[in-house]
């Protein structure tokens, strides 16, 4: 297949064009023009990211579309980009979620539209950058640069407790990041380079690996909102505007799991094996805990937020089973969660725009007057509880089969979590779609507009596409996952001490 990327710095273009879009947005005056510009621009970026998939070589595990330029030689920092199968999917998810976010904020954001759109576009740059960076400092730069626009999104356009949520989000994430920074510097001192591929597969001492793993783990676990590091997540999700919640759920949480895949496993394989059992059980705890708390929620956004904790538990579980099925399932689960939970947050946003409440009781019985809405809600709720034929089923199935390879007890403990997911999602669906229609009266509430349908339709298509025909998605993963497993399971010169 031809790879014109030799001459075309496609990744750089994708990363930095949103900044250009933001610069143009600063100059625009009317709110209408701003909304249209951001939408058209993000859509263009999304279309421009398609060649990545078309030109992607699925036979190799090497980083593709690579770019290497010296950036700050005095500190040995390079500008290095490249993607493998895992990052490819996440980049595509990011670029395609963005226009939907703009659509979902069309009516919701009425104040300071310009600043909002600029924040969104800066976020896009940072998010794509995180998944493409192959230099630790560049990675960290994007990783942290995201914090400022994201906390502004929550703190300026958020709900009643926005300040609390924004500050909590910021402090949590930053507290994790400083440990990541320490780990990065420690790796630099050992390797003499900030290059991510160069730090992989080195014979670090066991103690060193464990410390680096733990430092990274804190940072990534907070980002994933892994139990028990999840407490920032409900606050941030509930207070954030719809677009903020969607980005948070669909992309930001994935950065943590991406961090595990890109750094923890290949750089510190020994420590990965040491800590694997604990993380697996923590993941199971997250699945069950997320399900139980989601069941108790009356706020729709909180419900979806806690369901995220459970779903991300599947992703971390899949990763740390260290099997091909588990890791591919986890990656798929990351994409699925991005699609499904993103859609659910848009749906909750739609309810809020109409009723100005997210209370489950007050939103009851919307199905009667809003058939299109109820149908979409039904599909996404079923997808969220991993109904066969929808995307999440494939992901959770793969993760479970990976889990079986590790321990049957683990999978048996997971089962209540899966059942709980069905319980809380069906409870929500039952109330919202089929609940009592007399009280409160929703007969005057409008069904979905074309814009809202457009915002949800691509996600709907993805739910069934991945659910029925996942091969085009998993195809790009095989080589990369295989390579990752080789790096993790056979690190040169190690004798593993299996833990009890």
């Amino acid at each position: 297949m031809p790879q014109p990327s030799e001459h075309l710095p496609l990744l750089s273009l994708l990363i930095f064009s949103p900044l250009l879009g933001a610069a143009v947005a600063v100059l625009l005056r009317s709110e209408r023009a701003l909304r249209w510009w951001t939408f058209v621009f993000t859509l263009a970026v999304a279309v421009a990211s398609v060649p990545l998939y078309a030109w992607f070589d699925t036979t190799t595990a090497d980083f593709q579309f690579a770019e290497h330029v010296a950036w700050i030689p005095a500190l040995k920092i390079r500008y290095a980009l490249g993607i493998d199968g895992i990052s490819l999917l996440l980049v595509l998810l990011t670029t395609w979620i963005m226009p939907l976010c703009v659509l979902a904020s069309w009516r919701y954001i009425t104040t300071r539209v310009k600043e909002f759109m600029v924040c969104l576009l800066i976020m896009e740059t940072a998010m794509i950058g995180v998944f493409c960076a192959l230099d630790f400092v560049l990675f960290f730069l994007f990783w942290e640069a995201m914090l400022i626009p994201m906390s502004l999104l929550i703190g300026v356009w958020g709900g009643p407790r926005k300040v609390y949520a924004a500050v909590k989000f910021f402090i949590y994430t930053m507290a994790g990041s400083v440990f990541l920074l320490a780990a990065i510097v420690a790796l630099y001192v050992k390797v003499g380079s900030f290059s991510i591929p160069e730090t992989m597969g080195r014979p670090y001492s066991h103690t060193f690996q464990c410390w680096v793993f733990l430092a990274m783990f804190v940072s990534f676990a907070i980002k994933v909102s892994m139990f028990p590091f999840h407490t920032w997540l409900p606050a941030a999700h509930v207070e954030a505007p719809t677009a903020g919640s969607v980005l948070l759920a669909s992309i930001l949480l994935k950065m943590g799991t991406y961090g595990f895949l890109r750094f923890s496993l290949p750089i510190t394989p020994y420590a990965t094996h040491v800590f694997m059992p604990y993380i697996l059980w923590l993941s199971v705890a997250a699945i069950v805990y997320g399900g139980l708390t989601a069941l108790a929620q009356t706020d729709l956004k909180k419900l979806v937020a806690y369901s995220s904790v459970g779903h991300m538990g599947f992703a971390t579980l899949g990763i740390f089973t260290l099997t091909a099925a588990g890791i591919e399932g986890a990656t798929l689960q990351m994409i699925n969660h991005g699609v499904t939970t993103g859609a659910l947050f848009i749906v909750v946003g739609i309810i809020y725009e109409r009723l100005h409440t997210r209370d489950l009781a007050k939103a009851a019985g919307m199905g009667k007057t809003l058939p299109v809405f109820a149908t979409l809600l039904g599909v996404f709720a079923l997808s969220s509880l991993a109904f066969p034929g929808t995307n999440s089923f494939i992901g959770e199935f793969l993760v479970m089969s990976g889990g079986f390879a590790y321990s049957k007890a683990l999978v048996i403990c997971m089962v209540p979590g899966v059942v709980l997911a069905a319980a809380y999602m069906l409870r929500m669906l039952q109330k919202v779609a089929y609940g009592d229609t007399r009280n409160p009266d929703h007969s005057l509430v409008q069904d979905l507009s074309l814009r809202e349908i457009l915002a949800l339709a691509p996600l709907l298509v993805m739910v069934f596409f991945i659910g029925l025909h996942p091969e085009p998605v998993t195809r790009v993963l095989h080589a990369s996952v295989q390579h990752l497993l080789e790096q993790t399971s056979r690190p040169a010169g190690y004798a593993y001490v299996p833990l009890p």
Partner: protein
Amino acid sequence: MTHSVFIALLPEWVLLAGALALFVVSLGDHLTRRARIVALVTALAAVLASAGCLGERGTFFSGAYQVDGFSQLLKLVVALGFLLVLLLNGELPDIRGDAKPEYYLLLNLGVCGLVVLLSAVDAITLVVALELSSFPLYYLVSMRREREGQRMQMESAIKYIMFGVAANGIMLFGLSYLFGLTGTTSLPQMLPKLQAVAHSPLAIVGLAMTFCGFFYKLAVFPFQFWTPDVYEGAANETAGIVASLPKVVAVAVLVRFVSLAPPEHQTIAMLLTVLAVASMLYGNLIALWQKDLKRLLGFSGIAHAGYAMLGFVTLAPEGYAAAIYYMVGYLFMVLACFVVICRVSRDGRNVPLEDLAGLHRRSPLLAVTLVVGVFALAGIPPFVGFMGKLALLKAALTKGYLALVVIAVVNTAIAIYYYLGIVREAFFRDAAESAPLVIGWPTKALCLALIAGILVLGIAPQRFLQSLSSSLQALNSTPPPAATALVVNRGLPAVATAQPSP
């Protein structure tokens, strides 16, 4: 290249000429505007002169004054800082009306002292330059306008001068030890002689006491006590000056002195480590409780001095370069915060945190400047605060100071809390008063310049770091200029005939 003393010392001459002109202007009445213009022209000329003199090399005044890459680069930074500070000062709303021309005169003299300090390589010249840079600042602190119930400027000026004189006294005492050990006051000559006896208690005490003069300027623990009170008591503009320029120069000159210790000197490294940790913890923990923005920045300044000490602990050129880079970045970051303080302040009063509320509505540009400055101080990329911290951590960890790096990282996390408190006020809270803040074009230009500085130094520091490290290498490998050296029994050098202190 080596030029005559007139060309190589052009920045100094320009500043001196400016000071003379300001002296003449300050003799008349109601000439504030003229004084301001003269000061601005001087600063601009100093920037151009030091940019033009970047390549100058030479040793002057019997080896007491060295013009090298290191000094020239930092002279450019200081001249630039002078210009920024003058723009920051605006109309000096909180300085007594009839004293404004003198304010400019003293500021100019202080900058003169700082510039001379960068090139001084003889202990006596150095002390004189240090005093020249300090005394004008003592006056500036006390020059705040008196108003009902506000006498704290006097208290803070007294504190500043007492601590300053004490620190300088200790430094002089330390220098006398070094002189006693080596028999020379010239730093390049002292270097090899001191290395031979570096582990004797006398040398360690001498070096440690010598550092004190700079620790005081830098507000390193235990010489930090003046900081919050001076920040609070001095006019906002003056506090901006005290917080920025002297610290950059203190770090630069401290490099000259710390280089006197041999690279593997455990005791000195230990001493610096303790001070770094104490400064970081003290500054950050107390800053958490501050309600006044200037006091908060004062304590955060102590913490940042602690971060900069990380570079010195390494006793290696890489670490020194990181420390200087960090402090140059700090100049921009802290000035960005002070611009906002000066413009938000009503009638020159101090700014409690609540006064920032709703800033993003009242003046978006100031709010963005503040957020960039504060996040840079917090060490968030892509700003210079992050790259500087990265360079410092890298240098420290390369030398194996793992515990120190972990403490620094934990401190960064603590600091986030109070920095975020500032952003919370400015962006997330709405104010009762929402009248837009009108700012003139010089302030706008200053804001944009500071944001650009913070970003460019963070994203594209290569040229700066390159010239910094090459000049530092040259600094460490300079052969002692034997022919022009001053041996003390031959008499005092010409420059040092002025009395060091009153």
